[in-house]
């Protein structure tokens, strides 16, 4: 919905931004041909997770916080488990860690496949949605759906189901899948890796607006592998800290237009998490197939064009399939499937990479094992200021576009970051006002 008046002065608005998880809106004011103001409003009604976790048992956060987001429940489960295990100084063995990563790869595959093929690609091809895209290029949509299905298969095999898996517990799993069940994933995962490689080639051929941004990237970094759920939090400005150190370094602000708390690093800097950040910091850790695909797509050492995030996300699809395949090929069922969790007081922090960016949890637990305080810092809240800055650039560069086109471009600029609004409100209508 956009309502232009004069060319020089206009307002663009999108109420109810589509193809993002959750609800948000965007508004830009253009005065005398200059962008005066851009504002991303998050009107997802708050669900108060941090409040309702108080008084709950220390074993409950994985199940409860999964319900923050149906698209990335495993991210919530894993950050919660890590935080509570950190509170008690627990370490899980290599087999449990590998099985967790396999489950997490399944979530990356289904979430990235959904976003790349069904939600984001239609923008580049001038389609309203995947159904329209299917009329134009049915094999591309079917490939995305097949990738998504294979991601869900991994989640169902390890986690019991794809939305809100039931097999995850603090300390590990309720039951380890049998070697036969895991072995059955090898074939589909090989197929998925090929489909993901084809997806990189497909998306690399799209037309991208010429927009570059000077992001401060933040991501987990693990010298051993492309980090999903391990490593330290690093930035392109030299930050290198653990989850607790990072939480201490950010300031969360509550502003009137948003039910998501905005984060700034050192109370000052906007920063960006997610695929672009991970790629910039962890390119060296990509496996051979993903690195080869990134090179062939011409991504370089880092990618600062947010519209090309769809290519980076596709490279990450290859990586997730590849990592999953390696775990499947060397699987040994953990015995027991979980480590014991004491009833004791403690404070712990955990961070993992949700498909859309860094997700932190922190819990304080009393001597009775009940939670006294909870803090959850989701990716979209951290990315919100960078998304706003992107929108400003997009409006500035697109002032000559007709209202409808500019509005669509703005929606796209938001979808570039695959925002999960459900989790940020703890997102989007676009409005551009030309005055």
């Amino acid at each position: 919905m956009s309502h232009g008046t004069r060319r020089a002065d206009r307002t663009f608005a999108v109420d109810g931004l589509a193809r993002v998880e959750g609800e948000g809106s965007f508004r830009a004011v253009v005065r005398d041909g200059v962008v005066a103001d851009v504002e991303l409003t998050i009107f997802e009604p708050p669900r108060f997770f941090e409040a309702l976790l108080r008084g709950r048992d220390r074993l409950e956060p994985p199940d409860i916080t999964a319900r923050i987001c149906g698209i990335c429940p495993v991210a919530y489960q894993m950050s919660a488990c890590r935080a509570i295990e950190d509170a008690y100084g627990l370490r899980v063995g290599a087999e449990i860690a590998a099985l967790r990563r396999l489950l997490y790869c399944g979530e990356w595959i289904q979430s990235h496949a959904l976003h790349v093929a069904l939600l984001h690609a239609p923008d580049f091809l001038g389609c309203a949605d995947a159904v329209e895209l299917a009329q134009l290029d049915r094999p591309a949509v079917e490939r995305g759906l097949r990738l998504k299905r294979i991601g869900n298969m991994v989640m169902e095999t390890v986690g019991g189901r794809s939305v809100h898996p039931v097999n995850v517990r603090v300390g590990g799993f309720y039951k380890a899948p049998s070697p036969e069940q895991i072995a059955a994933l090898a074939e589909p995962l090989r197929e998925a890796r090929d489909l993901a490689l084809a997806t990189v080639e497909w998306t690399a051929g799209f037309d991208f607006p010429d927009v570059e941004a000077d992001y401060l990237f933040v991501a987990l970094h693990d010298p051993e592998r492309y980090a999903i759920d391990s490593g330290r939090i690093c930035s392109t400005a030299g930050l290198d800290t653990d989850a607790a150190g990072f939480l201490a370094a950010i300031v969360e602000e509550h502003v009137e237009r948003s039910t998501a708390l905005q984060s700034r690093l050192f109370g000052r800097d906007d920063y960006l998490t997610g695929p672009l950040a991970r790629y910039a910091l962890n390119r060296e850790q990509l496996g051979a197939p993903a690195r080869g695909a990134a090179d062939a797509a011409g991504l370089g050492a880092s990618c600062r064009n947010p519209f090309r995030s769809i290519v980076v996300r596709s490279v990450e699809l290859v990586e997730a399939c590849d990592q999953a395949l390696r775990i499947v090929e060397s699987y040994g069922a953990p015995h027991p499937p979980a480590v014991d969790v004491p009833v004791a007081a403690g404070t712990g922090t955990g961070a993992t990479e949700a498909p859309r960016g860094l997700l932190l949890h922190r819990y304080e637990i009393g001597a009775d094992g009940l939670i006294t305080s909870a803090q959850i810092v989701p990716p979209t809240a951290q990315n919100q200021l960078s998304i706003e800055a992107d929108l400003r650039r997009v409006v500035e560069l697109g002032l000559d576009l007709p209202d409808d086109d500019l509005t669509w471009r703005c929606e796209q600029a938001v979808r570039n970051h695959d925002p999960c609004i459900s989790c940020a409100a703890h997102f989007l209508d676009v409005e551009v006002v030309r005055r």
Partner: protein
Amino acid sequence: MTGPEPVPGDARPSLAVWKFASCDGCQLTLLDCEEELLALAGAVRIAHFTEMSRASIAGPYDVSLVEGSITTEEDARRIREVRESSRTLVTIGACATAGGIQGLRNFAASGEYARAVYAHPEYLASLDTSTPVEQHVHVDLALHGCPIDRGQLLEVVTALLAGRRPVLPGHSVCEQCKARGTVCLLVAGGTPCLGPVTRAGCGALCPAVDRGCFGCFGPADTANTEALARRLISDGLATDALVRLFRTFNAGAPAFEKEGRAHEPRHPAS
């Protein structure tokens, strides 16, 4: 919102998907029907589904799927609009049918939750309660679960398209365990399990991974929660843990709410 106009003469029934306070997991279940999605999109006109499309066609709609609970004045108004523009309204998931996990605020003191999370609770237009859709408008059919089951969703959509009543079980998870041959956790290992009082639908997923059911599908039609609570206490479950067990995603479902309240620590009269 921009979008295609309905094709003149398009006789396909229209389907709309609406979101209120929720995690999007139940609507995602529709997109998770990977093998059926394109066929479905051919059989129905997907008229409003913001998670999937920027196009939106004005009502009325033949079928509306509603996800999420009502937590703001604005949403209380919006759900009435949805009702007025929908021939058949189906609630999908525990948020819509019972208020969801965010319904735990109904058990807290007024304003307590907002103050705990936000520096400026006055910026929020949030109600103190999270209520199921049926407390606001007439609901034609309820699909339970947190999240709903893909098979059940397909059954509902196919049945409604064919103009028949969908076949949905009202019995308990216990029967699904027996059907798949899972050994009873409650009897064999004394593991607390809500299976006997929880609505079937998931296929008894948790017991299959050696985990007690935690009631994500809400109470079965004839749930004897009182007998189960007695049993769990005699097996050694502490009453505060029992209250928490009944008080998750379906805390607001009448049978679970009643049982939870029955075991709450009594406060001295004030």
